């Protein structure tokens, strides 16, 4: 008789696991990291909701995760998630978004969610390119890269997304590459428990579209080895000069601030205040 082995994360899926990502895509590693984090926390999956936008990263939860999933327009996932979280503060809302999703079309929603410190967990898949639409330059694509819309090399400097999040007021920020899957899993678990806006940036391989740009087409293993070689923990990086970290990927947990008031709790406070004022 054929022995059937079930994947330990199978229970989180809405039917058979059927991802449509390209071979070697980093999205699979990220999806596992999210689900392992939830498994580690032993939390009820029904108490989670996922909101995603348009782009390859949107397919991480949608339609596969067997809980509430809202798949919305390009760049707007945070704005939908904000309304959802404000209306149902008792559920954990996780947003998965691409780098273009987050910092180009959705840049405004991104910085304002950081500023509001609303309790959302944002998983940003930074593959440094527009994957889904055919390898166009993103606001996070390295300077001078040749992409399908920058044939002469890009003439705009990229965003450092984690630094943007920190400046905008996010209260937990971490960055890992897909090579550090275990650390990523731990940071995601921390982010889920964090009572405020947490931003997890993942430098992730898109062997099809970004692989082309750096001469590693369809070569996920090389891209991962490159992440391994270039990653440097933020604690170490702090001791080095800017020149020494220039070509490195600074990873680690950047900040965790538990003092800032969280938005849905502020709303509760206002309700109490409003009612007591009326009664006076």
């Amino acid at each position, binding site marked *: 008789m054929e022995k059937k082995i079930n994947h330990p994360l199978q229970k989180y899926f809405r039917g058979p696991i059927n991802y449509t990502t390209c071979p070697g895509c980093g999205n699979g590693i990220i999806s596992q990291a999210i689900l392992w984090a939830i498994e580690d926390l032993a939390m009820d999956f029904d108490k989670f909701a996922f909101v995603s936008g348009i782009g390859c990263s949107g397919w991480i939860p949608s339609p596969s995760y067997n809980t*509430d999933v*809202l798949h919305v327009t390009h760049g707007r996932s945070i704005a939908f998630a*904000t309304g*959802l979280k404000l*209306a149902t503060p008792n559920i954990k809302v996780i947003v998965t978004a691409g780098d273009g999703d987050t910092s180009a079309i959705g840049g405004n929603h991104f910085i*304002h969610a950081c500023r509001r410190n609303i309790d959302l967990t944002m998983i940003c898949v930074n593959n440094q390119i527009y994957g889904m639409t055919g390898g166009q330059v993103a606001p996070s694509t390295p300077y001078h890269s040749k992409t399908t819309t920058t044939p002469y090399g890009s003439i705009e400097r990229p965003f450092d997304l984690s630094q943007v999040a920190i400046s905008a007021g996010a209260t937990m920020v971490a960055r890992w590459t897909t090579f550090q899957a275990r650390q990523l899993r731990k940071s995601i678990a921390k982010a889920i428990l964090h009572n405020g806006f947490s931003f997890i940036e993942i430098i992730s391989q898109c062997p099809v579209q970004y692989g082309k740009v750096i001469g590693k087409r369809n070569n996920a293993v090389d891209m991962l080895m490159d992440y391994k070689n270039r990653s440097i923990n933020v604690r170490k990086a702090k001791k080095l000069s800017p020149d020494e970290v220039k070509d490195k990927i600074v990873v680690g947990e950047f900040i965790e601030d538990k003092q800032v008031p969280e938005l849905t709790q502020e709303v509760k406070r206002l309700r109490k205040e409003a009612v007591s004022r009326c009664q006076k």
Partner: protein
Amino acid sequence: MINNSKTNKTDFLQGNIACAEGAIMAGCKFFAGYPITPASEIAHHLSKRMFEVDGTFIQTEDEIAAIANIVGASWGGVKSMTATSGPGISLMQENIGLAVATETPCVIVNVQRGAPSTGSPSVHLQGDILQSKFGSQGDYQIIALAPASPQEMFDFTIKAFNLAEQFRTPVFVLSDSLVGHMRERVNFPLQEELILSERKKLEHYQGIHQKIFLDEEVAPMPVFGKGLKANITGSTHKEDGFRNVSDPKIMDNAIKKLTNKILKHKEEIIEINEHEIDDAEVAILSYGLTSRAVLETVKIARKNGIKVGSFRPITVWPFPEEEVEKLSRRVKTIIVCENNLGQLFPFVKSAACEHCKVISLPPKVLGTLYYPEEILEKIKEVI
């Protein structure tokens, strides 16, 4: 918690405030918006009142976020609303399409200003009649109600919530700067007189292929956070929510079911106010504030023995095609009075189907009120 709203009383209220109070009376618990003249008073008022009724108010970073927030909140199970003017609607359009496609009940108030671009923020124009219906991508149907007074701002906001809940769809309140800003008497209904609709909710999880979309009789909504494992996407999908963008039959089904959900219930949705139409030779079709000048005109005309009546769609969308067709068989001429260059006019003309003459009559100066004399002049010309 304190009393939901002031009940059984009469107040002298601005249209926008009446709209905000109507929302509270309808059970709205979530407002998101971005400041814009002439709609801002709705936000001002609700920034205080929402918290008093255990609700939430958020001033978003832009209107794109405002519509996204109210859709998110609606999936969280609460009645939600936003209010803006034409430029804000332009920004919302993509997500209005998502609200239609995901069958999300919500109310969008458009206190119209008019003219392209920034236009003239405080001039009364009915500039967004077409963009309410056709502004978002693809084929879809929308419901839009046009109030003409603060009382109607109150009543129609409640009605808009009821329709949104009944048909699981976004509903417009199409006001304008004058109706939003004028002050008149508003009667609040008694709580027990109030009829409120609530969305049909999915009670229990029924497996991954549970039917939560695309029912012409309106599918139950799987509100989030209740273990119903909702599968929601703005892409074309099947009844269970699973996306399919390769099979044209599934796409066809999605578009037609969504459209039919509204069109098959036109009789329930459409409301028309007719006045002195029975023996009329000339009917004046108007909506919103314009209809008040028309009623005045009818009064004067009747005094002079001219057989004129008023035909006022309360529901601008879905367009009352059959009703206009019937009207066109009864009268010799329909004069369409709207404070724009004739946005609804082509629809009236096509519904009238050559049964009678159809004339478009914008006010002499766009953005000003009609004088009954200018309408009368036209009537005299055509009879």
